[in-house]
């Protein structure tokens, strides 16, 4: 099987290890991974701040980059949700504004083939034991877009529960937003910081060595708050846990 990796801009620029982990993990599972160079940002920062028209070239770009692939896999719940939930809206609005069906058609092609990593593993590859080894205590924060827009359910947990050496700690108030919200973190900085502080208090309360999510954007906020407090708790993307083996703990 051959899939295209949509690494997302935040992972490309700030968290290359996550993309590398996805490549290592998928190749270990016998999947051939391509990285179409023409890919870019999904457009979420612009769309979620109200600049819908500025996202349209990025919808086109996504379509061009991934048109020839049957599966597009991304290590980001919120970017997958942007494609699946909002691309059809962008397409429908452009059509309603009398600018043709091009974007709606691009969305219709993108939606069914775009998978968040844990969805792809559980639903397409049908694995929960990916042969990972990660000898640490970990608490899992289900990100809002993964939880409510994609409906990931217990897929990430089922994958984590199969990781050898990993002890999963329950996170109190897990389903509450961490407070990142893209430009929300800047536009409503005080509320965002208060939400982040409460999330971090709950993370610390678990005593876990690491906090894990399916999204580096939330981890940027949680990890940045932890680091400012001088906490040794590591923010870690689920791909990096699942890619770790006894031969090479990441």
């Amino acid at each position, binding site marked *: 099987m051959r899939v295209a990796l949509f690494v997302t801009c935040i992972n490309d620029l*700030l968290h290359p290890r996550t993309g590398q982990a996805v490549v290592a993990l998928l190749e270990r599972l016998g999947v051939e991974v391509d*990285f*179409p160079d*023409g890919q870019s940002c999904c457009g979420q920062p612009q769309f979620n701040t109200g600049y819908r028209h500025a996202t349209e070239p990025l919808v086109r*770009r996504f379509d061009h980059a991934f048109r020839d692939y049957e599966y597009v896999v991304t290590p980001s719940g919120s970017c997958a949700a942007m494609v699946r939930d909002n691309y059809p809206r962008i397409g429908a609005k452009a059509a309603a504004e009398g600018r043709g069906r091009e974007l709606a058609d691009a969305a219709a092609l993108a939606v069914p083939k775009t998978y968040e990593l844990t969805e792809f593993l559980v639903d397409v590859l049908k694995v929960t034991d990916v042969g990972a080894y990660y000898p640490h205590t970990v608490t899992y924060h289900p990100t809002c877009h993964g939880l409510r827009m994609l409906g990931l359910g217990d897929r990430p947990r089922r994958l984590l529960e199969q990781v050898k050496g990993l002890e999963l700690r329950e996170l109190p108030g897990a389903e509450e937003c961490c407070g990142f919200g893209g430009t929300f973190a800047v536009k409503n900085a005080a*509320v965002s*910081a*208060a939400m982040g*502080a409460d999330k971090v208090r709950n993370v610390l309360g678990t005593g876990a060595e690491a906090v894990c999510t399916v999204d580096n954007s939330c981890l940027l906020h949680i990890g940045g708050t932890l680091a400012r407090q001088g906490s040794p708790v590591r923010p870690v993307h689920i791909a990096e846990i699942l890619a770790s083996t006894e031969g090479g703990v990441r």
Partner: protein
Amino acid sequence: MSGTYLGMPDFPRAAAAATRDTRLRANLTHATHTIRDKRAKAVAELDDWAQLRAAGAAVKDRTLRHLDHYLEQLEAAVVAAGGQVHWAVDADEANRIVTRLVRETGEREVVKVKSMATQEIGLNEALAEAGIRAYETDLAELIVQLGDDLPSHLLVPAIHRNRSEIRDIFRREMGSWGRPAPEGLSDSPAELAEAARLHLREKFLSAKVGISGANFMVAETGTLVVVESEGNGRMCLTLPETLISVVGIEKVVPRWQDLEVFLQLLPRSSTAERMNPYTSTWTGTTDGDGPRTFHLVLLDNGRTDTLADTVGRQALRCIRCSACLNVCPVYERAGGHAYGSPYPGPIGAILTPQLRGIEGALEASLPYASSLCGACYEVCPVAIDIPEVLLHLRERVVEGGPVTRRGARTVLQPAKGHAAERAAMRAAAWAFDHPGVLRAGARLAARTRRLHPRRLPGPGRAWSATRELPAVPAESFRDWWQRTRGTSSERQGGAK
């Protein structure tokens, strides 16, 4: 907090002040978590909740599509039952009508059952200017009124107060409004409730005019419905000689049968009760039973304009249950006053900018008062996709666009103060659409990574005030891929 919403600072500033108020934060967290946990249990008892929710949304949508028809049917039924109907296009007109109706009775005092619509139009202040004193009789509204305060929650207007604050307010203020608080009043809930009961009883027994809102209006019979927990509303509805009900036009439902859906959705979503303790219905007037005169004031105040917006109109489905407030992490920390209207929380963030227009600084900031976590949509008993409307309104703020004002289509200009952001967003989108530029930028950032500041200037300062900035890695993923895999997949298209 003084008793007016005018001149409210925009949301981020008001919310920042609230996050520093530790007592407010504690009161809100305790109350919202208690209600949300109880609600989840009450909803889980019904195995057809999803169908009820869909039915609620469908009934509301169908009614809103034919709103003119159902309102005319309602008016005819109310008149046939002995009531009088008044149409108010905005807050001023509604206040003038109610003031005139009260004056015509010759009374200087009225009792009120809790009503969002009269909060929305500032009726108490308008009556006060005309020399008429309005007494709030809902317990929480009484606390708010005595404290010269503003409601901060749809269902629990005094949610920001704890019981020792309430005892202090009762002791200090009750005497100047009527019967004083009993000597040695403690902060036990039973004593506080008894003090309020004695204080209010005087008002109920002497009042000749009652003012109410309504949760629903049934078009086929002209019947109004109020659901409540305390019974104070029923006293207001039945004891006075004249009853004036001020109700938003979106509250109409076609038939009695529709109440079957809403009388399940509302109490479970709001108070986590299977059935609310008091459901009062009234239809016109009846000899020897209840008020002799009944007036219905139908309030538009921006609702028809909201209805003209195909995305935003779903906000008019709202049945004011407050479930979205109780799950909202932003409301929990910002408190209700930051939203600058009687409609706080996620529903307020989409309703207020639509009812009032988005041109004011507060109204333009409200669509951004959300992290878009989606918890509000998940709990909404009439499935209002609040995040979708927030995004729709954000677009209206930064890009402008067509809107309806007073029934006329007009094109709104983008809000001021977003020029730098707009330029940055467009520049980012342009860079993301030109991977060569992006790659060059990433390499430059990597090469200069040791020079990056630990604290950011400008808008970024808000981030680095409480969070560490991420370190820029030495090599982007894109460059790693090209270095280790060699071949670029440019043939897959997309390169310009």
